[in-house]
């Protein structure tokens, strides 16, 4: 019994971990340090992080809406990519299927658009 097929995988894991550790620890040592106000603040998606009301305040729901819309298109791209790669093999059937898929996504998109989901205010 030999473990040889797993050795490269373990090696890759170790290498990856070492690289991550190395990059993170070397950056503060060798990189330049020029601070400004914006840089010191916590990164919160473009929102003013402070001053916050007591209890943390509320986070406008609009951001979530946009994020969810983004995810839909994100996933659409993920679906489109493998189809594009093997377009030749899938042929007309694959094309029709993909069109149907895009149509359903767009139905949802038009709904969001018509019902004002894209208006910021």
């Amino acid at each position: 019994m030999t473990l040889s097929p797993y050795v490269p995988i373990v090696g890759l894991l170790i290498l990856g971990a070492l690289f991550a550790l190395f990059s993170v620890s070397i950056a503060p040592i060798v990189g330049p340090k020029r601070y400004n106000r914006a840089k010191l603040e916590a990164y919160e998606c473009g929102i003013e992080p402070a001053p916050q009301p007591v209890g943390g305040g509320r986070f406008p729901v609009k951001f979530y809406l946009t994020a969810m819309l983004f995810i839909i298109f994100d996933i659409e791209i993920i679906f489109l990519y493998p189809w594009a790669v093997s377009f030749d093999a899938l042929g007309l059937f694959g094309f029709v299927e993909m069109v149907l898929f895009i149509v359903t996504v767009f139905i949802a998109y038009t709904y969001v658009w018509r019902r004002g989901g894209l208006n910021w205010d």
Partner: protein
Amino acid sequence: MEDLNLPPIDYAALSPILILFGVACLGVLVEAFAPRRARHPVQLVLAIGGSVAALVMVVLERNTRVVTIGDAVAIDGPSLFLQGAILLLGIVSLLLIGERSLEAGGPFVAQAALTVGSEKDNRQAQGAPGNTEIYPLAVFALSGMLLFVAANDLLTMFIALEVLSLPLYLLCALARRKRLLSQEAALKYFLLGSYASAFFLFGVALLYGYAGGVNLQQINEAVAASQNSDILLYAGLALLAIGLLFKVAAAPFHVWTPDVYQGAPTPVTAFMAACTKVAGFGALLRVLYVAFEGVQWDYQPVIGTIAVLTMIVGSVLAVTQQDIKRLLAYSSIANAGYLLVGVVAQNREGVSSTLFYLVAYGFTVLAAFGVVSLVRDADGEATHLSRWAGLGRRSPLLAAIFTFLMLAFAGIPLTSGFISKFVVFGAAIDGGQSWLVVAGVVTSMIIAFPYLRVIVMMWLSEPAETTPTVSVPGWMTSAAVFIGVLATLALGVVPSPLLDLTNDASLFVR
């Protein structure tokens, strides 16, 4: 690159699912483009018309027995029967959902997410027009249910589960009155439901590890021949079963049921109690009978124990309920137990009796919730049992109908409830599961008490000062209640046609 071989697709067999999905998408477009005023009638016609069209296709395809689209969907006797049942019950539920005459603006609100008690929310509760997205949502749920009962591999089944569940989570939150309860119901259902989905998915993963595939036939073969560890099989089956038993509200995965049934708008509760139960049991039957037939002796005692537990929990807790919707929820749990008795029988009668029970129960429960939606006072539906005192004096017809439905739930002969209990218990004794029948009989005695209490409340108690009025039902609620009562009576007096149908439909294709 060479061409991939496309799997053959039997579009006609899939057409009910496709029609409903298309109708739901159309419904979304109607929401987007139709003027506000036209939306309600258009959506109602669209949803009911689509369901009827799908039902017609199911009837036309009634002799199809095929595994299609790459073995992902099996259109066979049970799936066609269950699809037909879901569509029929769905149409009746859509009638209840479509009722707008009972309350200004209908039983739903436009925005579920508004803070309860805020000014906007109050305006909304006072009769602002409700949303019409419920129709596409309900139709999406229906299409998911149709796929759920026909899914022949576990991943398709999972997707169908999500397609049917997500709209239901939303629908639960839309009650016009008692907003807080409604929101609580939706959140609870969502959290526990996603938990159950996760269990299901985890089970699928383990079974994939065991069988090397997610197809039900593949699992069936692997159960017979696989060299892999049985732990994967049993753990996978257990997790899978948890996901499914959650949907059908079997103990100990039932805790969401009373809260959700109580909080959800009554038409939606009716929809869930009738259609979701059919879909859940359809999938459970298929998984257990097709994929895990080889280990039936191992899981039979476990599911049997769950059945007993479910019957006991449902019937005992129903005794103490003070709210009619919660009472019906516990009754639905107990009925899930009786249905499980049929499932555990593990013979052809088990399948056919479960199918019969599902249809019979579905119609009765639809009519019961239809009646519940009619008994109202100034704050909406008066669901507290004490408010039903003396209802028989105020509106004898309605009370008589509800009495009949209660007797059907209690399993008195000449109602569908009796015949369905009879066939289920008969199948169980045939399958050598007499202990389940004993448990079923004992719990039937217990749960007869709460049903009887409702009857006593309505007829034998004196009406209180504040007995709620009974709204004059619109034609849609009347039709739904009428259909439900008629089916309950007809299936009790002349059950033969449906019994024959379930008998013919009780073979799974493999």
